[in-house]
């Protein structure tokens, strides 16, 4: 092996790792299938073959540890194959464990080029023990097991004999066996060798009609097709303007058709069945079932539904999250389930299909469903919606509240299995790839989660707009409608709410965002003659909130090839990528979600709605602030400006520690100082939380620095002007105001922060 060329060896090892990983994926599925049906000979044989191949090829390149590990599993499987050992859940578990060990080894092999030095002797012993039940008692056991299946009895002794050389670990023998069994064949014991060859023939032809292609190669082909599409666009533009040359027009048309076909076929080659994103799920569900004492029956439908490979990667994690959630929250435990009229096993259906150019993935369970009332109550408590909004909210809308970031807390995100959790992350990840999520649930009946994603991301339809002389592309999928205001309409229809421009779109207030301002480009709303320029509003939607993006000009709709921005530019949230236009120039692609965030449309969405509700009072009182009302101690009503609140958290009391007379808690890998306001502001009530299970905390952050203000109860969110009222001269208090008929003191978060940590002042300065 030493004289083997280094690159060549590396190539072989990479090939081996690829093959092994594929094999292990298959193996996992097969083992789970075997657990379902212990008698399925095809599956047993396939499992045996796969692990045998892994063993053989690792041995051939000199990875003895992997070879030995695989060998232990193979020995056991061979006994299963010949019905000497019966399939038990423990056996499956041990085999799965072995697979994990192998996977780990191959991962290390890939990373470091050598086998790892983890000690697997425990696992090896386990497998060995299962393969060699103690000499004398096992004989009885084996015959007892075999006799339960009388047909197979005569085979047992034969197969034991056959396995003897393997048990002795005689490598030569194994090598010989390698050769005879190399053919990917359903090697049944009673099949004569001649027949083996015949059977292997058809599978070979299938293999020959497929080739493996490097993904990079596909990507670069895709890029080139993208270029071709652009070149075609240019030629078509030119040929139509020189339309008297019929030859050119004809050729351009043919080019057009061929390019479109090529593009479509190219897309197809990048398509992968959605199954490849699902392979891990049966195992996850199985393991969760064992851990959580649940009985869940996972059914996967439409595995063959195809979508672009980049999307497969993108949906893997969100789907995993949803599946885990379903198992953890949706599914009842065995005991709970027994009390319902539903079947014993919770049915969890994962279904994929194509629908009007989109891929739809549904995750349906018949578990306990989402408790809408509870979700609503939590949303109100966390200030995501008001009580009035909650009352008016339909079931479906309310169920979708679980995707709101305000409803999942940090404490929950850290939990591995997830508890209600991070669903906002799931949603934003799906939306990032242009998809949407919808949840329907009935309490006690189950949950239906529907994800819709586009087929591909590489080429998308986009609207081209111009601002300050630069062209920008807006992905069509976030586009709702276009509005153009001309002449007198400009002055009449554009209104402001506290300086924020809005437009009345069919009676609803649409917040306006000026692209020029967002991108800090030159901007003037009048032309050279001093007349008001017409206003073009692109109505966009991001995370369910719509807003109007004002641009200088709306040009055209085009298919664009999305190209990523270099790492230097990744930080600019407003851009999703770049594309090359028909004239060869580069145009930036706007990120609707990013613009919604940087322009505060999304952050303020909740308060915006409040703003609309309270608009009457707003216009009367001039400048208002959105305040979060809370109760301190028995009866004190206090408030803090909502703009100062980073998060509202609920911590279990027993997680709070006292360090140097200061309450602190572990929060997002940091230590968060918990502040009892009474210790800093003279005359306030202490919060006694010793009786409570949980403590409500308002988190206020400046840069890296955060403090948590302990409150007794979060009450409401209101709009109130801060200039009418008694300004206080107590440090830490802005003033006291009459809000909802109660005297309410508004705290000054910055001052409190500097009192808690005097260093912040310096930092702030």
């Amino acid at each position, binding site marked *: 092996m030493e004289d083997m060329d280094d690159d060549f060896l590396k190539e072989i090892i990479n090939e081996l790792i690829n093959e092994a990983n594929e094999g292990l994926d298959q193996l996992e599925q097969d083992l789970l299938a075997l657990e379902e049906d212990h008698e399925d000979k095809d599956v047993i044989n396939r499992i045996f073959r796969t692990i045998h191949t892994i063993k053989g090829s690792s041995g051939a390149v000199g990875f003895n540890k992997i070879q030995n590990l695989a060998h232990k599993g193979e020995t056991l499987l061979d006994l299963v194959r010949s019905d000497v050992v019966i399939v038990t859940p423990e056996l499956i578990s041990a085999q799965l464990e072995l697979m994990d060990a192998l996977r780990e080894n191959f991962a290390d092999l890939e990373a470091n080029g050598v086998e790892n030095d983890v000690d697997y002797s425990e696992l090896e012993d386990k497998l060995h023990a299962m393969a060699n039940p103690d000499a004398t008692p096992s004989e009885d056991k084996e015959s007892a097991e075999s006799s339960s299946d009388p047909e197979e009895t005569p085979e047992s002794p034969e197969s034991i004999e056959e396995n003897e050389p393997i048990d002795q670990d005689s490598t030569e023998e194994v090598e010989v066996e390698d050769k005879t069994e190399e053919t990917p064949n359903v090697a049944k014991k009673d099949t004569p060798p001649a027949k083996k060859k015949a059977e292997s023939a058809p599978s070979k032809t299938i293999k020959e009609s497929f080739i493996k292609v490097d993904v990079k190669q596909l990507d670069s082909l895709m890029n080139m097709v993208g270029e071709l599409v*652009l070149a075609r666009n240019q030629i078509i533009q030119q040929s139509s303007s020189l339309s008297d040359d019929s030859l050119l027009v004809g050729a351009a048309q043919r080019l057009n058709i061929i390019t479109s076909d090529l593009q479509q076929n190219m897309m197809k080659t990048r398509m992968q069945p959605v199954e490849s994103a699902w392979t891990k799920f049966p195992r996850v569900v199985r393991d969760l079932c064992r851990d959580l004492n649940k009985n869940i029956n996972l059914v996967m439908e439409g595995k063959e539904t195809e979508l672009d490979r980049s999307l497969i990667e993108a949906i893997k994690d969100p789907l995993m999250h949803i599946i885990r959630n379903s198992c953890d929250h949706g599914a009842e435990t065995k005991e709970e389930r027994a009390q319902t009229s539903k079947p014993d096993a919770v049915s969890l259906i994962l279904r994929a299909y194509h629908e009007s150019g989109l891929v739809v993935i549904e995750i349906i369970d018949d578990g306990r469903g989402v408790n809408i009332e509870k979700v609503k109550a939590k949303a109100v408590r966390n200030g995501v919606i008001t009580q009035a909004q909650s009352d008016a909210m339909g079931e479906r809308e309310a169920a979708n509240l679980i995707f709101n970031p305000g409803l999942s807390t940090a404490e929950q995100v850290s939990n591995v299995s997830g508890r209600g959790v991070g669903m906002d992350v799931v949603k934003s990840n799906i939306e990032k790839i242009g998809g949407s999520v919808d949840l329907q649930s009935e309490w006690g009946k189950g949950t239906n989660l529907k994800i819709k994603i586009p087929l591909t991301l590489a080429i998308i339809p986009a609207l081209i707009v111009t601002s300050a002389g*630069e062209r920008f592309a807006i992905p069509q999928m976030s586009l709702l409608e276009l509005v153009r205001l001309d002449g007198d309409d400009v002055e009449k229809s554009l209104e402001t709410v506290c300086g924020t421009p809005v437009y009345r779109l069919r009676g609803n207030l649409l917040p306006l965002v000026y692209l020029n301002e967002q991108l800090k480009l030159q901007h003037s709303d009048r032309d050279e003659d001093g007349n008001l320029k017409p206003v073009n509003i692109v109505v966009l939607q991001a995370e369910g909130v719509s807003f109007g993006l004002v641009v200088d000009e709306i040009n055209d709709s085009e298919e664009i090839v999305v190209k990523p921005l*270099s*790492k*230097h530019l990744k930080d600019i949230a407003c851009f999703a990528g*770049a594309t090359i236009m028909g004239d060869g120039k*580069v145009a930036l692609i706007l990120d609707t979600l990013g613009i919604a965030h940087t322009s505060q449309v999304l952050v303020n969405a909740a308060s915006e709605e409040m703003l609309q509700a309270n608009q009457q009072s707003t216009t009367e009182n001039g400048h208002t602030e959105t305040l979060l009302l809370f109760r301190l101690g028995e009866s004190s009503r206090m408030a803090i400006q909502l703009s100062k609140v980073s998060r509202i958290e609920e911590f279990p009391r027993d997680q709070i520690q006292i360090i140097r007379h200061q309450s602190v808690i572990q929060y997002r890998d940091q230590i968060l100082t918990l502040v009892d306001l009474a210790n800093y502001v003279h005359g306030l009530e202490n919060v006694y939380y010793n009786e409570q299970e949980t403590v409500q905390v308002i988190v206020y952050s400046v840069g890296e620095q955060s403090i948590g203000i302990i409150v007794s109860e979060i009450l409401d969110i209101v709009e109130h002007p801060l200039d009418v009222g008694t300004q206080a001269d107590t440090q830490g208090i802005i003033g006291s105001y009459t809000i909802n008929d109660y005297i309410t003191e508004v705290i000054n978060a910055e001052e409190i922060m500097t009192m808690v940590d005097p260093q912040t002042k310096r930092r702030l300065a």
Partner: protein
Amino acid sequence: MTKIPLAPDIIQGLINLRGEIVTAIDLRRTINTKARNSSLNESPMNVVIMTDEAPVSLLVDEIGDVVELDETNLEDPPQTLHPSARRLVDQVYKMDDRLMLILNVSSAMDIDGALKIAS
């Protein structure tokens, strides 16, 4: 060249190089000399460098010559060099009449590092 709003000054824009989108970095900015005077018809040259991820273009005033270097005339820059210059200068080449600096390409493209020095 397409300008990128909100991007740091060092990044001049994006160019289309045979179908690939290349980020152009102004070398004048990275080495902290005064900005190019665009009115004086000083149009910059693109020196495109392949990196592991994507090609990057360094904008320079002028392309001089292609020369072969004699390794014996290469020397490390003196320790007294200002830190901001140190990160950009790999080595010094002693020519007959003057010194030539060998640019450390990877730190020339390191925007974050450049911004840190600038501030």
